[in-house]
């Protein structure tokens, strides 16, 4: 049986919600009661049934609504999708990867038929049925990266590998946690991470780059990252910061549970076969506090993590203005009892 796709919004009236089974499968990012950066990269292998790792490219109940939101963002600001001229081949690599993975994981929703270079792609949730020639951009309505990422949840960065570094040379970035593709495109791994505090000094990026440049085809890797967002807004871009920034001043003890969302990025890293690039999908999951605290272990642990977060990290993640209100609200759900090991709910 297929996924029941929700009709919901990530702006204006903010009707986004998680169903009970999507709450349980939420990729809670803390496996202990405190948080600090680490090179938390592990092989991206299939995980338990019912988890977000059941398939390597996850499609969930928010798929259709997220794709509608992406189309709105792109109509307002086409610079969110850019590809430097040498990245077209990598775009075809990505198209193949996402079509294969979505058709493999969700055959009731997606079908890929291949006859030599002549491909047929059926995307039932979005009502798409296209035949095209693989490698011939004139046979698609958009470039290959844009075409397939308008049909795939999450942001996508395609990194070119040269000179022992990775270069952010193409991307579809509409659900970002406050970084600008338009500004960062063309930068190398260290440059686009330059604004991140603390991690450079810890050697995080040097080790991460070494790992990523050695990723092999067919052996993807993954890590989790997190931040918080007020209202279930996907488009928390710096471009629109002056529009969504004021939301951070609207958190009150009465509305914390509804307004404050934990935002988790499941980042994965895949070697692309023809271009030798790396694609870096950044899949965003949102959960409001009211939903998250239905799992008592998560409530207790999140309280301790947010309360004890180093000030620099809290500032970088933009929590400063509402952290006291959030911690006070969460503290009422923390009886001080121990939490079980691991990420999952009890």
């Amino acid at each position: 049986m297929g996924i029941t796709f929700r009709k919901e919004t990530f702006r204006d009236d903010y009707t986004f919600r998680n169903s009970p089974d999507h709450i349980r499968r939420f990729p809670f990012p803390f496996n202990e009661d405190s948080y600090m950066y680490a090179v938390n990269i592990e092989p991206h292998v299939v995980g338990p049934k019912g988890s977000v790792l059941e398939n390597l490219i996850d499609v969930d109940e928010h798929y259709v609504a997220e794709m509608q939101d992406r189309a709105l963002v792109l109509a307002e600001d086409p610079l969110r999708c850019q590809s430097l001229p040498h990245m077209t081949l990598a775009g075809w690599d990505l198209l193949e990867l996402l079509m294969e993975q979505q058709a493999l994981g969700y055959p009731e929703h997606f079908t890929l038929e291949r006859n030599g270079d002549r491909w047929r792609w059926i995307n039932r949730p979005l009502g798409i049925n296209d035949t095209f020639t693989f490698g011939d951009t004139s046979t698609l309505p958009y470039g290959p990266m844009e075409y397939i990422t308008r049909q795939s949840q999450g942001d996508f960065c395609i990194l070119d590998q040269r000179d022992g570094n990775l270069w952010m040379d193409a991307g579809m970035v509409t659900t970002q946690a406050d970084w600008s593709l338009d500004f960062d495109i063309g930068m190398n791994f260290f440059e686009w991470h330059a604004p991140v505090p603390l991690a450079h000094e810890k050697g995080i990026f040097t080790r991460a780059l070494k790992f990523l440049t050695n990723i092999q085809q067919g052996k993807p890797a993954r890590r989790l990252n997190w931040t918080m967002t007020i209202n279930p807004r996907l488009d928390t871009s710096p471009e629109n910061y002056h529009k969504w920034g004021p939301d951070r001043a609207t958190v009150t003890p009465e509305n914390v549970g509804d307004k404050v969302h934990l935002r988790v990025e499941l980042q994965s890293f895949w070697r692309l076969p023809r271009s030798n690039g790396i694609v870096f999908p950044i899949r965003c999951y949102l959960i409001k506090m009211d939903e998250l605290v239905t799992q008592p272990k998560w409530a207790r642990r999140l309280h301790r993590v947010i309360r004890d977060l180093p000030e620099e990290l809290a500032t970088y993640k933009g929590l400063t203005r509402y952290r006291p209100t959030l911690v006070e609200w969460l503290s009422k759900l923390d009886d001080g009892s121990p939490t079980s090991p691991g990420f999952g709910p009890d």
Partner: protein
Amino acid sequence: MAAKTIISRPIYGTLSPQPGKHHLFIADAEGALAITDMAGKAPPGFFDGAEIVFIPGREGKHIAALEALKPAQLHLPPSFASLVPRLRQTLTNAHMGLRIYLAGTEGLIGQAMQVALEAGIDHTSMQTEHRGSLARRMQCVHCKGITENVTTQPALCSHCGLLLLVRDHYSRRLAAFQGVCINAEDRSENPPMEEAFP
């Protein structure tokens, strides 16, 4: 010299003569002194294969000192914008063995490097030396407009009027620092503008 801050912030060096057949210098204002300082270390005949492009600015200083180096060509455009078509042409027709030297304000170095990058020249192969004003070119992340010669922190976007924090995050492709609204969360907050990049 600008203080080292974050990794995307450019680091400038001191010009030194490189092995090569042709040498293209682009400088403005005090950048001329970086070239004359370097000349003392250059082998005889070095400037026979050199073109110096110098944007003297209003005061018109340092021209005689550059003439004294007897470069193969000395070009004095009135502004960077007026130089761009010629520079593109020069770089399009350039051969292997051309070395590029950029000296002067950050805005000049950044914009000249931007044109060279578009011509396919690797940024690490260019010599740079910062002299003179610390004024920044800033891209407003919101409206995408570029504001030239920003000397204050925060600074007003000359296009959309938002009050922007001038970050150290720098894009070579845009030849600009990033400006992000400083009071986005509460527009009633108006931090004072201070001279930060004189």
